[in-house]
């Protein structure tokens, strides 16, 4: 397989929106719509991502368009940065590839009462303690042990189940997307193999592009929103990026395996076998959904425990309680998930399955799912950039609902393949280069760090700019990394 450039039709609809007409390929039920500007679309054309946008348009029951965020890049089946919504009333399907292997991979942001000047004298100690205490690395498990029934409880209820163990407080749950729990989770649908892979990994970071970062608020674009979120200039925050670990990966793999022949059974023609799917209302569809929700709830527990461990590290280094240090959760978002949501489509309210594969929910002000404290500003949208530049906090906008089913991007998007990134890093010490920029990076693998180096990613400022100008989400604050731990 060659990473072929996209040479199909692409029409500019607005300066921030491009269309692949459905006439491009026989079988496309809707157009493809890509949120990008001229700079980004030139990069996006260079791999097969746009072909994948066109392929997603084949899915039965798809509504409005096959959508792509400005950080889109080549995935498998679905592009990463892809969004689509399917209507069960129209034979709409659920597609595990539209969620991804890392079910409910996502991001959470914790603020603090500490400012850069408070942390500087202890920064080395803080980062090294985090690296020592927080489980990172390939296949590494966490420090918490759960019985079989406790594990079921985590999969059924999400972080609310951790409150009894004293590993979460009510506010943590309230400020998590969906309160950390998708209803209808069926832990019994999670295979023994998935449990074997993930049972001891709750509270571990993993490897690859997962990270825990110390960040400083370096710019505020929306004073009111920042104030409501408890963010101030120079404030130290902690951003965590991780997902459902081996449990989720296996749930997805199990589903892809069991759905192998589903398209033929249901008479669905697909241009790519990784788009395997089944009608939402079919036994296969229900089975996947039950397991997916269980894995999603497990992922929220994972991020909750990672945050809890970070709080404990801060307590140990600063000698004060985490509450006293103001280490409160700003918000937690999923960016690999499928959810049943109400949207207005052609003037009618419909319940549709929104697949966000490398895309973040961005609900507007006063949406019932937005915490009361944020009602006037909208749902926080957390966008991690690369480890050398910046991450962003935004809030969902009203126009996101009609344009993208209330969705925005999830990151900067990869620019270089892992190969190309490693080649560029030959003879270099990426950790030293970051240190010279004032960022302390700890990683378990030179290759891992090389593959995740800043140059491997698009410029998150450009991506976020498009999201803002397209009206999907509005900028609130830019955060600069000062320390990062990786697997």
């Amino acid at each position, binding site marked *: 397989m060659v990473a072929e450039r996209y040479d199909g039709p692409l029409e500019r609809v607005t300066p921030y929106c491009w269309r692949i007409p459905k006439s491009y390929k026989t079988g496309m039920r809707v157009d493809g719509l890509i949120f990008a500007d001229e700079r980004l679309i030139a990069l996006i054309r260079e791999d097969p991502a746009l072909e994948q946008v066109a392929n997603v348009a084949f899915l039965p029951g798809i509504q409005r368009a096959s959508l792509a965020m400005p950080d889109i890049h080549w995935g498998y089946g679905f592009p990463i940065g892809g969004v689509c919504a399917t209507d069960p009333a129209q034979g709409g399907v659920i597609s595990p590839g539209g969620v991804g292997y890392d079910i409910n991979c996502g991001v959470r942001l914790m603020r603090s009462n500490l400012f850069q000047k408070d942390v500087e004298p202890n920064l080395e100690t803080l980062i090294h303690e985090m690296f020592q205490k927080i489980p990172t690395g*390939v296949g590494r498990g966490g420090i918490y042990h759960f019985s079989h029934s406790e594990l079921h409880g985590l999969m059924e209820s999400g972080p609310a189940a951790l409150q009894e163990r004293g590993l979460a407080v009510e506010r943590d749950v309230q400020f998590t997307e969906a309160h950390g729990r998708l209803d209808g989770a069926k832990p019994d649908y999670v295979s023994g193999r998935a449990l074997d892979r993930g049972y001891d990994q709750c509270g571990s970071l993993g490897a690859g592009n997962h990270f825990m970062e110390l960040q400083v608020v370096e710019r505020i674009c929306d004073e009111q929103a920042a104030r409501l979120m408890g963010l101030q200039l120079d404030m130290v925050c902690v951003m965590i990026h991780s997902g459902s670990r081996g449990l989720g990966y296996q749930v997805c793999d199990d589903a892809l395996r069991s759905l192998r022949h589903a398209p033929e059974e249901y008479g669905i023609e697909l241009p790519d076998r990784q788009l395997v799917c089944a009608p939402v209302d079919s036994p296969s569809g229900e089975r996947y959904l039950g397991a997916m929700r269980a894995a999603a709830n497990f992922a929220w527990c994972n991020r909750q425990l990672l945050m809890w461990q970070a709080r404990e590290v801060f307590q140990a280094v600063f000698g004060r309680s985490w509450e006293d240090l103001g280490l409160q959760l700003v918000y937690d978002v999923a960016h690999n998930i499928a959810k049943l949501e109400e949207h207005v489509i052609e003037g009618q309210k419909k319940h549709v399955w929104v697949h966000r594969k490398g895309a973040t929910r961005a609900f507007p002000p006063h949406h019932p799912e937005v915490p009361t404290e944020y009602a006037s500003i909208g749902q926080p949208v957390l966008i991690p950039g690369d480890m050398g530049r910046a991450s962003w906090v935004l809030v969902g906008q009203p126009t996101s609902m009609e344009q993208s089913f209330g969705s925005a991007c999830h990151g900067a998007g990869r620019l270089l393949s892992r190969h190309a990134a490693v080649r560029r890093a030959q003879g270099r010490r990426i950790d030293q280069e970051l240190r010279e920029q004032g960022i302390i990076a700890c990683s378990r*693998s030179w290759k891992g760090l090389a593959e995740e180096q800043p140059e491997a990613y698009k410029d998150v400022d450009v991506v976020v700019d498009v999201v803002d100008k397209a009206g999907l989400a509005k900028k609130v604050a830019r955060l600069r990394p000062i320390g990062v731990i990786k697997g």
Partner: protein
Amino acid sequence: MYETFAHTADVGLRVKAPDLNTLFADAGQGFFTLIVSNLSDVELRSRVEFHIAGRDLAYLLADWLNELLFVFESRRLLLREFEVTVDPDGLKAVARGETVDEGRHVLDHEVKAVTYHGLRVEQLNGDWLAEVIVDI
């Protein structure tokens, strides 16, 4: 013979061999080079047997590599040597290696899964060719 090829977010594995047994054996070895930096440092202390049913060669390859992934994750076993016999109903294999020793083995990638995107096993000019993309 195996090599990796570029994929923006993940990694591709391409294997070429004169016969199916060697193809699957080399695919196994290539797979573990994605996980561990220095496969040559993996000693042969443990032995694992595999029996995998399947008639579609491409799916059989994905299932084979996913079994290897499961063995790595559940038993922390790195495997270096493979003897594989492919027949019309599936494959049998014996693999040898050892458990991860973090003092000697550098683990590069956490493999989430072996995907079906671009998955192929086919004959080209008498040789066998396989390609698979692995989600990192």
